[in-house]
């Protein structure tokens, strides 16, 4: 799955996802990626977020919507991403997934759980000389 957040030079924001889901899924199964607030969410003047991982679990908690609401309430993207997956971890300790978040001022962060290794995500901004892969240790 790819989940993406884009902020233009004027601070306008959007988000998107694309995936082929889980291997060997039950035919007809849809994951969190096309579900608003689950796979991704964006709100003008605030920020955007995108999730990846076990969609059957993540769609029950709307982590992307949760992260954006946390940013609206003043949290940094990093803190918002972390707080957005905490309810999932509490209910499903074996949960595997990650959330990226960015606000419309260009600050970003990420959080993950259960991957067994740091979560890697990609960033490009005027601050990065080229596309940069960042490793985020999991909670």
């Amino acid at each position, binding site marked *: 799955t790819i989940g993406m957040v884009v902020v233009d030079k004027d601070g306008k924001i959007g988000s998107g996802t694309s995936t082929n889901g889980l291997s060997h899924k039950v035919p007809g199964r849809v994951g969190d990626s*096309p579900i608003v607030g689950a796979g991704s969410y964006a709100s003008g003047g605030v920020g955007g977020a995108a999730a990846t991982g076990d969609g059957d679990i993540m769609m029950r908690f709307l982590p992307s919507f949760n992260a954006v609401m946390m940013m609206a309430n003043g949290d940094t993207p990093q803190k918002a991403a972390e707080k957005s997956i905490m309810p999932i971890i509490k209910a499903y300790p074996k949960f595997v997934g990650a959330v990226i978040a960015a606000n419309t001022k260009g600050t970003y962060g990420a959080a993950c759980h259960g991957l067994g290794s740091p979560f890697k995500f990609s960033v490009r901004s005027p601050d990065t000389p080229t596309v940069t892969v960042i490793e985020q240790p999991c909670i």
Partner: protein
Amino acid sequence: AGPLPLVINTWPFTNATLKAWSEIQTGSYLDALVAGCSECESQQCDGTVGYGGSPDEIGETTLDAMIMDGETHDVGSVGDLRRVKNAIGVARAVMDYTQQTLLVGESAKDFAVEMGFKEESLTTNRSAEIHSSWLQNKCQPNYRQNVSPDPTKSCGPYKPSSKLFTHRDFVKPIHRWNHD
């Protein structure tokens, strides 16, 4: 705060990031999202995006995608999309050419074709091999529970068990190469 514009995406899919970054220099943030995600679809990023990956129980690759405009809260979304490769493009078409939010399955494919997208198989030699290996491994792993025959040991077809006796407590095979 960091400078703008900004492109950020899950996983080290750097070509997708680069494509979106290139697009945002002259296009809109929505154009950049479509360009970036489309790049992953065509490159089949990690086998987790686009055609030829993650076959379902019957061996078919299906796609999910969404685009959201944060400025207007417009959304276009497709789920269980079959036989059309450019899922994010179809999601954009749902947003641009309908007043609805989410289209699914065969009807989503019909909409895509109506909007000019090409209908074609999403199966590749690789996805066929993944499915074949899974069948040879008695359809393990799978996501069934409370059915007979025992889904931890056998392929289907399955029927409901007479009573619900368990929620399968197993670690799902979710990792970098198998996820939503």
